């Protein structure tokens, strides 16, 4: 495959960026998007040019580091996939692919396509945990949990904190991320004792980081590679009102 890549290049958060166009030949349809970018970088290094900076790690859709905005879609045009699992089969020979970093005030560009997603970590650190005394692990079935809540909590807990919800939202809102983190505890008995403090602290931190509000457009749900559902945001809202 032969591709024309228009990639955002930027030195750091304070410098001005611009698009640089690369013509890349010899891309195999079997390659993942990350492999294609790695191949581009090898080509650039071979020519003595500066490679494109982007983040990636696990290559199996669970670390959440490989996010980038591809042709108008966070993580690319295929639903339910991270960029690392996106195959080049989904693009046509000769296609122009425009690649941008996540755009949000709380996600400053570190370099090129790599952004600082520490804002999400700070929200998690504000309350996304349960306090337990250390010691021997208790028997797992001591506290009964109904199957429905167990499944819903698991579905919420698969959020990998990649930031695609923020990137997709027209308001750069992190509500889907926060709702997943709140739901995974709110639905389980272990999360209830600190429920009120958790939701208050996480929402306050979300606001402090400068994320936008939720307009309930559903772009976050549409682009979430882990397909976290929008009704988690309704649960987050309920939890927040109950906390006062």
């Amino acid at each position, binding site marked *: 495959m032969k591709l024309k890549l228009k990639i*955002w290049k930027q030195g750091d958060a304070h410098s001005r960026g611009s*698009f640089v166009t690369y013509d890349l030949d010899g891309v195999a349809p079997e390659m993942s998007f990350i492999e294609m970018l790695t191949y581009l970088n090898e080509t650039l290094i071979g020519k003595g040019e500066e490679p494109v900076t982007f983040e990636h790690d696990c290559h199996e859709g669970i670390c959440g580091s490989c996010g980038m*905005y591809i*042709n*108008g*879609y*966070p993580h690319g*045009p295929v*639903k339910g996939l991270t960029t690392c699992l996106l195959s080049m089969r989904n693009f046509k020979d000769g296609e122009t692919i*425009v690649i*941008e970093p996540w*755009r*949000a*005030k*709380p996600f400053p560009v570190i370099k090129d396509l790599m952004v600082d997603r520490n804002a999400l970590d700070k929200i998690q650190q504000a309350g996304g945990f349960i306090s337990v005394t250390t010691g021997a692990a208790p028997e797992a079935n001591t506290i009964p949990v109904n199957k429905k809540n167990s499944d819903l909590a698991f579905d919420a807990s698969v959020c990998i904190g990649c930031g695609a919800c923020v990137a*997709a939202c*027209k*308001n*750069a*809102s992190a*509500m889907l991320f926060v709702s997943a983190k709140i739901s995974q505890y709110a639905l389980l008995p272990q999360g209830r004792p600190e429920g009120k403090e958790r939701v*208050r602290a996480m*929402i*306050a931190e*979300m*606001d402090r980081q*400068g*994320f*936008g*509000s*939720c*307009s*309930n*457009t*559903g*772009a976050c749900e*549409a*682009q979430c590679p882990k397909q976290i*559902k*929008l*009704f988690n*945001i*309704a*649960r*987050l*809202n*309920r939890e*927040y*009102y109950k906390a*006062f």
Partner: protein
Amino acid sequence: MNKILFSAVSKKFVMALAGLFLLLFLPVHLGINLMLLRSDPEPFNTAAHFMATFPLVKVVEILLILAIMTHITYGLIIQVHNWLSRPVRYAVRNKSDTSAFSRFMIWTGGSVLIFLVIHFFNFYFIKLGIVEGDPENFYAIAYQLFAVRGYAILYWVCFLILGFHLYHALQSAFQTLGWSNEFWKPVIRVISLIYSIVIPMGFAIIPLIIRFFK
């Protein structure tokens, strides 16, 4: 305390409550407007007189004005904050699978506001004595306005836009208030669809009937 009152969730909560209050008023207004279809102006003018003078309605009127102002003020504050949350826009338009009605709420809301201002000048300010006119004969004023083709078209277009606004607004309010889950979401969508068609089209059909069938 400020953090609680003005958090991202609280602002949406206040906006949703104010919006829902306005949605409750629309069917009442429509019920009165449908009396315009009768040839006798008396029932419409009597209803308008009742709405302008009955003490309990006066209280509701103040609440309505407060709800409109709150909805607009919070809407603008939220929108400006949202725009600031993404200082650098994407070069390629976001193609995520979302409803068009939900993406243009500030613009459909702004259009409805412009109509509301015109509507206030045509009727409400006459009632308050700010604008000249006969507050006891709103029936005649309505017929005079609908006789103007430009006004009838504006009226029709504004209610079409109001329908777009309401379709997302109702669903969004339920979601914001936390009254949505996997089971209720499709039910709420159907209720929103019915409301956003029946109420605005109920208003919009009045000038059509008056112009073409009366």
